[in-house]
């Protein structure tokens, strides 16, 4: 029996129907589901102890039935570390992207729609933030606030906001110029309604793609910070941190690089595919 959550003519049905037609997007969604499944049920699949218990006798074992991904230089089960690492990486990637989308999106929409002095002040501020290399900026924030997960999130979000503001502002400006905005004004639509029902839906395409792509970038930049010891603190596993630890044993145990590397690749790819598919499904012009 088919599960029915929504009535038949609901717009979400239509979007889902169009999304389903896109094979690449469905592949991305499938991969994303697997990663999310790993992250959510990590404790059931592999107890966390296994990821942090050091067994001296088991150092750098090659993949076997007992240790599917082998063990690392401290004898910890690498499969458990990769699976639990997905929690950190996804948490960092998704939360920072969405926070910067909300803050940057609102700022950008207001700047683009109203323009004027507010726009000028905000954009110059963003220019200042953008003129500092992002890693350096994140590093400065972490150094000032202290190295832990929360501050890592703040640091990455801050460095990501300017590009979001710029993107949203530019698409809002191009949409706000259209005749249908003027039409909406002529029948008394409020600014709030115009931004929500007219501008954002029409500006959504590039914003969705940017956000899903930035999730991948965020995972990488968190990995970079963890690599220099400013991010997720050991013994907590995180894909980037796993990569940097494995780097020292690159020739002795190359599989330690493969698994987190492939996971980052799959995660980034799946977010991009889903984002692309979502953009196409949300555009009524591409309906067929």
């Amino acid at each position, binding site marked *: 029996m088919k599960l029915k959550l929504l009535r038949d*003519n609901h717009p979400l049905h239509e979007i889902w129907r169009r999304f389903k037609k896109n094979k690449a997007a469905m592949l991305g969604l499938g991969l994303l589901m697997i990663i999310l499944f790993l992250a959510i049920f990590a404790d059931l699949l592999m107890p966390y102890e296994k990821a942090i218990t050091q067994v001296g006798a088991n150092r750098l074992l090659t993949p076997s039935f007992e240790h599917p991904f082998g063990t690392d230089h401290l004898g910890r089960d690498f499969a458990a570390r990769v699976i639990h690492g997905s929690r950190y990486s996804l948490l960092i990637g998704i939360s920072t992207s969405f926070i910067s989308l909300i803050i940057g999106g609102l700022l950008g929409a207001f700047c683009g729609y109203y323009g004027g002095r507010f726009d000028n002040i905000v954009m110059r501020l963003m220019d200042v933030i953008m003129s500092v290399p992002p890693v350096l900026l994140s590093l400065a924030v972490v150094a000032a606030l202290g190295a832990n997960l929360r501050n890592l999130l703040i640091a990455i979000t801050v460095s990501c906001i300017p590009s979001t503001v710029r993107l949203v502002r530019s698409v809002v400006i191009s949409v706000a110029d*259209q*005749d*249908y905005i*003027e*039409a*909406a*004004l*002529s*029948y*008394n*639509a*409020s600014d709030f*309604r115009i931004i929500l*029902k*007219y501008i954002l*839906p*029409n500006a959504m395409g590039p914003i969705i793609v940017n956000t899903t792509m930035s999730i991948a970038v965020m995972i990488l930049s968190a990995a970079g910070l963890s690599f220099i010891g400013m991010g997720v603190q050991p013994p907590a596993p995180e894909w980037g941190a796993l990569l940097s630890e494995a780097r020292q044993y690159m020739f002795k145990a190359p599989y330690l690089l493969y698994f987190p590397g492939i996971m980052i690749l799959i995660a980034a790819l799946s977010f991009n595919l889903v984002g692309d598919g979502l953009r196409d499904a949300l555009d*009524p*012009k591409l*309906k067929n």
Partner: protein
Amino acid sequence: MNENLIEIRHLKKYFPVKEGHLHAIDDVSLHIPKGETLGVVGESGCGKSTLGRTILRLIEPTSGQVLYDGVDLTTLSGAELSKVRKDMQIIFQDPYASLNPRMTVRDLIAEPLLINKVFKSKALVYQEVDELMATVGLSKRLASAYPHELDGGRRQRIGIARAISMKPKFIVCDEPVSALDVSIQAQILNLLMDLQKDLGLTYMFITHDLSVVRHISTHIAVMYLGQCVELCPSKELFKNPLHPYTKALLTAIPVPSSEMRHKKIEVVKGEVFSPINPAPGCRFSARCTEHKESCKGYCSDLVEVEPGHFVACPNI
């Protein structure tokens, strides 16, 4: 009886540009009697569209007054302005750009009704939408279509349905047919005229197409570079044009006659002046065949030379 629904007094709109001010509308005074259609003609860039938008205060005027039923719109704000806007609507030139591509036909027409809370329940709103679609000749099955799926004529019908949804009294038609092909133009014009009769509408019809304006207007205003140069009843304009620019415009209408085949159409010589910081005096003087010394200082106010026939030219 024939009181004026719209009265424009010395309306000005200057846009600041690098070199100074662009005089889009310069001291225009017009009036539109209730239930009639004022055609506004003029070449591209003469400020026709700006005039229409300024009347609705989609563009803020620099100075001057717009009286709607005796109320000065330029001083209104907030709730009062919203109330008046329900009575004044606009139909745009590009029927595609003026419709939100993310909304279905039903939502597009319902939007003004929902925003202004005309009806108590959504069911009543959608019932009204169905009636409006029937009125403008849109079939019911199109209700859940998106604008890009329809042709230009149907899109313009959506625009018209949306404009009349709040039962306005005055509609600015900003070149509503110039983006459509000729057979559709006729349909839309007839629809607009039928609606005028049934709903008692007053139109301001902006166009550059003289044959269209002749068909639909009762009065015609001719604009040149932000100024109104001639204003008179429609028939009078075609029979007895007085301003040199109007004469030039009328000779540019192609005549469908075999005798005219090898004759060259007389065109106005010279270029249109820049509307940025224009020199005082008659703006048409440099291209005018009847140009005299006295044209230079002329302030180009409309003068009533015959009853109901206003011209801004010192030589008449």
